[in-house]
């Protein structure tokens, strides 16, 4: 993590020393700030009450929330009541000082693509005080009918299997689908149709436009041994190389990870359902069982604050505890 820390470029009072100090007293959440493509990271006290966090909130042009991996329908030991923890996430969103402009749900809304699971998820998420919810599917959402049900419910006005883009207050958001038509032995896949669309989608954008990409499976090789990566993500990122600020938000791995590569910052969000193990620390990436009183510490949502001009994207990962 220390590798990602740079000097106090934007004179925001957060340097490496400060970061390390914060490390000492916090540990449940994390605040990520991006300045010109450099990600800074500081852990954050639960409840988003730290002075540093509030400083970051001020002056944001807008904020949105990333929520991921709700897995409604899952009822195993790791979390027998995923609807309740999704509700806690919604309550957390609604208790934010400033309501987010919108939510991004980065997939695995459901466990088994069942209509009743989607119904429950929609019902709970409807209670969130946010402009609207943008979705991309996880592999659990496209288990039946080749993803038709997902598209009917969450993917109206999208292209292909559910990809799309939109602009918001000067930033360009791109929702990608990398969970369909997967090849034996491979990883997540975008496919040639989507890649061609992506190339066209960004063709006429100014290079100074901040680009935020969101998709379910990480668009970087987190841990290919567990399938945590996307086969053709390099090609997609190639189309985004000329942009000064690219942020990539993913779910799927149920834990916070980040990486910076040039002007691209990658970030994965917590799940609202159950945690998954750190790569290589378990026989498989299956749900990780933790003591019941610890569960909410390892579930969470991400608040994202965008500051125009400074190209600053601050990501605050808050646990549900």
């Amino acid at each position, binding site marked *: 993590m220390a590798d990602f820390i740079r000097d106090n470029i934007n004179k925001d009072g957060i340097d490496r020393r400060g970061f390390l100090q914060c490390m000492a007293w916090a540990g449940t959440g994390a605040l990520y700030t991006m300045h010109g493509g450099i990600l800074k990271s500081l852990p954050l006290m639960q409840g988003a009450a730290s002075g540093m966090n509030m400083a970051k909130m001020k002056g944001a042009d807008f904020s949105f929330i990333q929520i991921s991996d709700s897995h409604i329908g899952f009822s195993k030991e790791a979390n027998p009541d995923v609807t309740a923890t999704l509700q806690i996430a919604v309550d957390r969103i609604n208790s934010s000082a400033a309501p987010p402009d919108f939510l991004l749900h980065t997939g695995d809304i459901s466990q088994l693509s069942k209509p009743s699971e989607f119904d429950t998820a929609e019902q709970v998420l409807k209670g969130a005080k946010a402009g609207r919810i943008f979705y991309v599917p996880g592999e659990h959402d496209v288990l039946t009918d080749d993803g038709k049900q997902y598209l009917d419910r969450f993917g109206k006005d999208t292209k292909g299997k559910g990809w799309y883009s939109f602009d918001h207050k000067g930033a360009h958001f791109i929702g990608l689908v990398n969970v369909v038509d997967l090849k034996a032995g491979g990883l997540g896949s975008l496919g040639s149709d989507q890649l061609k669309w992506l190339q066209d989608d960004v063709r006429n954008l100014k290079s100074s436009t901040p680009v935020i990409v969101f998709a379910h499976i990480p668009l970087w090789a987190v841990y290919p041994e567990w399938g945590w990566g996307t086969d053709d993500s390099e090609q997609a990122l190639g189309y985004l190389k000329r942009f000064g600020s690219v942020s990539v938000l993913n779910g799927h791995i149920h834990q916070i990870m980040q990486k910076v590569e040039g002007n691209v910052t990658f970030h994965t969000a917590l799940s609202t359902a159950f945690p998954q193990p750190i790569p290589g620390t378990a026989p*498989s990436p*299956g749900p990780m069982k933790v003591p019941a009183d610890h569960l909410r510490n390892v579930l969470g949502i991400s608040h994202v604050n965008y500051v125009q001009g400074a190209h600053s994207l601050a990501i605050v990962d808050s646990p549900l505890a």
Partner: protein
Amino acid sequence: MKRIKWIFGLAAMVVTALACTGGTKPGLAMSSGDKPANGVAVKIDNFSFGPANITIPAGTTITWTNNDDVPHVVTSDDNKMFKSKALDTDDHFSFTFTKPGTYRYYCAIHPKMTAKIVVQ
């Protein structure tokens, strides 16, 4: 000691045979309603098929059982020959291999999971 192990091994095989010929829940993804006469069990544990390579005589029915806490989808590499529904924990899927050949398959949602069946 060796003999004891062998007996345990035999017992395990009997249990496996029972597991694959009986206890099919109604409404699950079976290729037919019949209990496989020449059944072989493949278990899905920790995101892998076990055994990953099997050689069987033509006419054998393979029954996959998902022991993981996450769903898996048993799919032939060509995506046509066979494809299970999403198998939740303890769900089964069976397919009878009638023609000799090598059949590779994978999990459609966790494609790193691959395995092979050789039919003689």
